[in-house]
Each structure stands twice: as C-alpha cells, then as structure tokens.
C-alpha cells in the first residue's frame, strides 16, 4: 500500500449514495438535459466524449501508418491510401483532438470552479461552441466516409487547390467551422477570467492552469481567424478558380505557407500551454508544495503566447526565404527557449524538498517533463539554420513534434484526466492499473518515436510510403513501439469507463490538493459551490493552513 492510498482511505466517506446532495451528474437524467445543457461541466464532458472518439479514429489511422511502414516497398497499402491515412491522422489529431483537448474539456469543466464562478460568462455561447465543433467534425467524418483527403494536414497549395483528386473541400470546411468553435471558446474564457472571478480571487491568486488558459484563449482569438481566412481562400481557389496561391492562376504558393504557419505555429502553443498549466497543478499537488516562482511561471505563459506569433518563418528556412528573415526567425525561435526553460526549472524546483506522492497523475507529470525537455531542445536543433537545411521535412521533425504533442500535451491530458477524474465523475480510478498504463505509455512512446530522430538524421524524408531498405530496421522498432503505446492507451480507456460504475466513491479532495475546485464536493453541485467562495489566501498554500470557505 502506498502512502497515497492511505490518504485516500483517510478521506473517504462511508455515506451511502442515496444520501449524497444533488450534484450536476445526478440532478437530471434526460438526454435533453445533457445535449442542451448550458452547464459548463456537462459541456466539458460532452467535449471529453467527442474528442475521445476522435482520438480513437486518429489513433487507428496512426496504427495503419505504422503498419504500412513495416515494409520498405509499400506493399501493404497503395500510395494513395497511405497518403490519406497520414492526412486523416494529422487533421483529426490536430484539429479534433489536440486543439480542443485540454482547453475545451478541462478548461470548460475547471475554469469556473477554479476561479469560484458559477459558470462561464456566456453559457449559451459555450453550448453553441460545442455544436459548431460537432458540425465541423461531421464534415470531417463525411470526408472520411466518402473517400478521404490526401493533402497532409498542412494543405499546401497549389497541390491542395489544383492537383489533389480527393475530397479537399469538405475537409477544409470542417476545419474552417471548427475554428469558429475555438474562437468563441477563447472569447468566452477571456471574458470569464476578466469578469467572473469570485471575491478575493486576484490575478496572482489564480492557479497557473487558469493563466495558461488565458494565454491560450488569446491565441485562439488572435491566430485562428488567420487560418480561417487562409483556408477560405483555398476553398475559393479550388472551387471557383480564383487565383490566390496557384501561380498558373496568378497566385503565389509561398503566401499560403506564410498564412498557414502564422496560425499553425501559435497553434502549437494552443496545444502546449494548457498542458503546461495542467502539469503545474499536478506537480504542486503531488509534491504538496507551493509552485516555485509562481509569478515567473505565470508570466512565462503570457511570454510564450506572445513570442509564438513571431517565429512562423522558421518553417520556411528552405523555401527561398531571404537570409535576413531566416536569421531573425532563427534567433527569435531560440528566444522561445527562455520561457520554456522557466517552466521546466520551476517544476523541478517545486519537486525539490516536496513530499512526493508517485500516483498516476504524478507519473504522467514526470514523464511529461522529460519528454517535453527533449522535444523542446530538438526544436532548437531545427531552429538552427544549417541544421534545419538537413533535417527539415525528415523524420527528425516528425519525432520532434510528437515529443511535444504526445510526450507533452497527451501526457498532460492523461495526467490531468486522472487527477480530476474524481471531481468529474465522483469516482476513483484503480491506482495500480493507472500506474501500469502510465508506464506502458511512457515506454511505448519512446520506443516509437526515439528511432525516428535517428531516421531523420540518417535522411529519411517524412510522408514517405516507399522508403530505402536501409531504414527498415528502425521503422520496425518504431512500429513495435506503437503497439506498446496502443496497449498503454487501452488501459485508461478501459478502467476509467469501468470506474464509472465500479470505482470507489471519491471524497471531495482525494489528493489533499489546494485550489477551489477541491473545496466543493465530488462531483460538484450544479452551481459549483453552495456559497460563493471568498478567497483570502495565496494559491498553492500547501505549507499553510487549508483554505476555509466562508
């Protein structure tokens, strides 16, 4: 028995379920009460179910890609099928899983709880955002059913506008629509954070997760419109022959690269920043210690959200970009390392002399720190001009961004899911299975993606269906790792659903964590708090007295 089990046992209540006060899960049971709910918590769970569905779809595509790459001569699928598979993997994972993952699920569920509010500022708009997301998702599903799309998630013109023979327009419409969901969610969060904080919840008493949501929402608001416009232009060119990007119609393909990356680099931070917020919460809670350098960590979130708008040109060092522009973009990309380092060193310092509970969420957090550091520093390799000239568009890039997206965001998502699962559902997950799953995912991830760094350095280009035989060994390793990773994902998928019925009843605060969300019951009542909280204490007051809600 681990010490954390002891904590849980101490806090568990022996009350039978019928005696529970009405909570948001049990107040109403009709389908209508779920699908037309304006309760941020229910909407959060609707998102959770939707993105889990898309994650499974994206993961199936990834498994088929890894299956195809076991042999070098491309005999398992046709090249067209392979191209559609990696495109669907990218489009689904980026726009229908990673971007909405933490902001739309945890953000929706937790933001009002963390700042002591009853709901987000615009609950109806919040529900509308969800249905906009679903509408975009439907277009993507239709694209998949009628035959797929083969442009890559990057939709580079003029291939996407003039040359591809697949269903580009429905895929683009799906992504365009889902962008409006992001924009409205961002707007909702910004207003909520400005206007809905409970008495005493000053900016510097907000949890770091709220800071990162704020920074993410700013990116949603400022960057998403650019991709919306760029993709609408693609549709115009493809559907009506209005020349914007295809030189044969008088356009310029490099213009699309600029517009695309002006959004898609900041989009990396839409995916990364909320993950950093989650990790900060986990590290503090499972070290039972105040976040080291709270203000620096908070400011670093805003700094990352700002600098990220100035580095899009590092995706274009080898497209004839001017030397001056390339050099400036390279230098600015190095500057991103500063706020990133702030986060990592402060997490490490938070663990130092804490009282560490190695429960599942903490295992994910520790895995996250290691993988994020490796992903981030390999990003500096790619920001170095002469190195990028070699590694650009190779498997090194694929490995790098999977270390950030999977090693980073995905682990943060899973860590957060376990940490807040008792709050979401009122049930505990089985700890032992949780740890095994976390271990499998960490090992499987590294076996899958570390060989890809070497493949890239050896010169294997990305998006290659047929590849030279000398790369087969490393590809087989990578595919073998993917099976371990898939087995790892299977664990939480099964035991979390199991726990909905059979999990131990969760106490209000199973982790002895600070933060307003742990002061209300698990699951919380419909309006979050029985009385509006009043905050007269600093955040992460682990060495102090526990907060008392008046």
């Amino acid at each position: 028995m681990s010490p954390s089990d002891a904590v849980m046992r101490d806090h568990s209540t022996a009350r039978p379920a019928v005696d529970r006060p009405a909570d948001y899960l049990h107040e109403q049971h009709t389908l209508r009460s779920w699908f037309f709910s304006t309760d941020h918590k229910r909407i959060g769970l609707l998102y959770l179910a939707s993105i889990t569905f898309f994650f499974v779809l994206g993961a199936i595509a990834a498994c088929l890609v890894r299956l195809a790459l076991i042999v070098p001569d491309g005999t398992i699928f046709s090249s067209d099928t392979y191209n559609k598979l990696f495109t669907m993997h990218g489009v689904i994972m980026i726009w229908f899983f990673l971007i909405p993952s933490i902001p739309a699920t945890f953000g929706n569920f937790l933001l009002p709880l963390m700042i002591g509010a009853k709901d987000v500022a615009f609950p109806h708009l919040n529900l509308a955002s969800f249905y906009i997301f679903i509408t975009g998702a439907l277009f993507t599903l239709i694209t998949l059913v009628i035959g797929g799309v083969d442009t890559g998630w990057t939709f580079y013109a003029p291939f996407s506008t003039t040359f591809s023979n697949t269903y580009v327009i429905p895929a683009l419409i799906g992504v365009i629509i889902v962008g409006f969901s992001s924009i409205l969610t961002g707007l909702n969060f910004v207003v909520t954070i400005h206007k809905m904080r409970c008495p005493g919840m000053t900016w510097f008493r907000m949890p770091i997760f709220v800071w990162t949501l704020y920074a993410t929402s700013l990116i949603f608001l400022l960057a998403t419109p650019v991709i919306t416009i760029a993709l609408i232009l693609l549709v115009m060119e493809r559907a009506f022959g209005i020349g914007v990007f295809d030189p044969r119609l008088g356009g310029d393909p490099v213009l699309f690269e600029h517009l695309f990356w002006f959004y898609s680099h900041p989009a990396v931070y839409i995916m990364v920043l909320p993950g950093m917020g989650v990790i900060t919460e986990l590290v503090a809670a499972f070290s039972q210690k105040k976040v080291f350098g709270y203000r620096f960590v908070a400011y670093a979130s805003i700094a990352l959200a700002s600098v990220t708008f100035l580095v899009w040109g590092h995706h274009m060092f080898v497209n004839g970009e001017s030397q001056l522009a390339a050099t400036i973009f390279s230098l600015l990309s190095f500057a991103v390392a500063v706020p990133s380092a702030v986060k990592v060193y402060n997490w490490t310092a938070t663990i130092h002399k804490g009282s560490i509970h190695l429960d599942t969420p903490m295992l994910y957090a520790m895995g996250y720190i290691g993988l994020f550091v490796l992903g981030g520093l390999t990003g500096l390799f790619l920001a170095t001009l002469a190195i990028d000239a070699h590694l650009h568009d190779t498997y090194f890039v694929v490995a790098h961004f999977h270390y950030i997206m999977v090693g980073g965001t995905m682990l943060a998502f899973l860590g957060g899911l376990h940490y807040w699962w008792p709050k979401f559902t009122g049930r505990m997950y089985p700890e032992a299975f949780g740890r095994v799953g976390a271990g499998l995912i960490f090992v499987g991830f590294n076996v899958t993606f570390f060989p890809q760094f070497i493949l890239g350095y050896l010169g294997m280009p990305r998006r290659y269906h047929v590849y030279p035989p000398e790369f087969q060994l490393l590809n087989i390793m990578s595919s073998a790792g993917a099976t371990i990773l898939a087995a790892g994902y299977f664990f939480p998928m099964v035991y979390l659903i199991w726990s909905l019925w059979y999990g131990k009843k969760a106490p209000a605060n199973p982790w002895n964590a600070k933060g307003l969300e742990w002061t209300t019951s698990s699951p919380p009542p419909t309006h979050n708090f029985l009385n509006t909280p009043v905050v007269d204490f600093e955040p992460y007051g682990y060495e102090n007295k526990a907060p008392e809600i008046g």
Partner: protein
Amino acid sequence: MTPDIAGSHPLALWPAAASRSATEVDHLILAFTGITLVLTVPIFLAITYFALRYRAGRNTVRRHTEGRDVKIELSWMLIPFALTLGFFLWGAIIFNTELHPPGDSMEIQAIGRQWMWKFEHPGGQAEINDLHVPAGQNIMINMISQDVIHSLYLPALRIQMETLPNRYTQVWFKADRPGTYRLYCSEYCGTDHSKMDGNLTIMSPGDFANWLTEAGSTQSLAAIGARLYAAYGCGGCHNDNARVAPSLAGIYGSEIKLADGTTTIADDTFLRNKILNPDTQKIAGTKQVMPSFHGILKEDDLTHIVAYIRTLREPTQ
C-alpha cells in the same frame, strides 16, 4: 544493376557525408547534442532523485526558505539561453555559406514535376531522377517546379531547397567524396511523392568527363534556347535596332527600373515571369506590347530560353 549506396548499411547510425560542409554540419549537430545532454541529463536525474529522496512518508529534511528567488530564476533563464546562442550563430554562419554559390559554379538546371526530377547539364546532357556531378568543383543547381511545390534533398550533403512552381531557387555544394548517394523529394507532392527519388553520383573529374561524353548531347542548353528563341520569333522585336522592345543583350543580371518606381535584378525568375506574364512587373519607359507565352512554352523551354538570354552580351565597341 543497383549501385552501392554509401552509408546504406542497415545498422548505420550515421549518414554518409560527401562534402566538407556536410562534415561541418555534423560537428555542429554533435556539439549541439553534447550541450543538450548537459542541459537535460541533470534535469532527468534531479527529478528522479527528488521524487525518490522526498517521497511522501520518508523521514527527511524538507526545510527550505521561501525567500527571494529572482536571482536563481534569472540564472536559469539566461545561462542556458546564452549557451545555445552560440549554436544559433554557428548555424547561421554555415547557412550563410550555403546560401551564396561562388561565381565559378558549374550550373545544372533542374525541373521537378509529379513525380520525377529532370536534370540538365550545361552541355545539354539530360538525366531523369539521377544526377551525376564531378567532385572538387562548385556545383549550383538552379531549379523550378512544373506543378506543385517539391524540394530537392541531398542528405549526404546535408542540404535541401524547396522547388517552387513560380520562381527559381538555388542550392549549391562542393562534393569531395566520390560515391553514390541518395537524393529525394522532401516536400510532400501527391501520390508518388515517395517514389520521386534517385541517386546522386559523385565522380572524379576524369570519370565525369567520360560520363558526359557517353551521355552524349548534340546541343548545349543555350543552343537549344537559341533555336527556340528563333522559332518563336523573339528576336523580331528584341533586337539591337528595334524600338518596340528592349534589347536583351547584357540584360541578364542587370538592374531594371520598373514602372512603379522600384528596381529589380533581371534574374532567371524575372525573365521567366516576363515571358509568361509580361503585363506584370512593367518596365519604366517602355510600352508593354509583348504577348504572353503562358501555355505555349513548356517549363524546360523556359529554362532553355533563359539559358540562351544569359549568353547574350552587350556588343563590345
């Protein structure tokens, strides 16, 4: 017969390097890997050590001060940043060399299209997907795409450059080690993107001269261009005496004043654009009467005509 590809051993963990510049990039990558280990290993060790040392329930000293931490914050913000800045500079310096081909480079024309590469040597020798070059000489590849964006990637030389459909881009190298290496298209370009690859064969100058002879060619690129130039009647207007159109003698590489007041250099991209879209980039002081050759000239015709225009020098007095 499949040639022996250098560095293609299945257990190779290091790519073959065919030029001095490639070796320099390797040194940069190695050194950067070193500094990465210096910056990351302590974090990995510290996290693991702290997690075990301060595990809940262990009886250990956890006392720490909550004092000012600005100094420590600044030090871990700035010291790693300063350490890595050296690599920014190092990379920028090598890249600077990679971007500027020396004047004496031998120029090879490349056209990318779905899904093949066509290379043409100055003497008119053409090859598909394979490229033969001499060692010890500066080679500049001037390339353009006929359809979508491609990218010519030469891993043994640690360089790549996108091949765009509306402008020429260049990549140059000086290879040292004869051998056969791989070349790829690295920018995703559709169905058979992964089959748009071939071999880069680096030969000793003697072997290369023999290869050129064997490959055979009746006409140089400029001569092919001259024939097209005559066939399409370009010289009818563009001649030294005509008033209708500017003379093209000596125009290549010269500075052109445009009607909108800006100036530009008459490079390959400019000349190609004026042939296809004469209504754009209007030249100051001339009346635009030239017809467009859009849809009439193929991409390699354009390359040949531009190669011919380059040879037109100002008549010496």
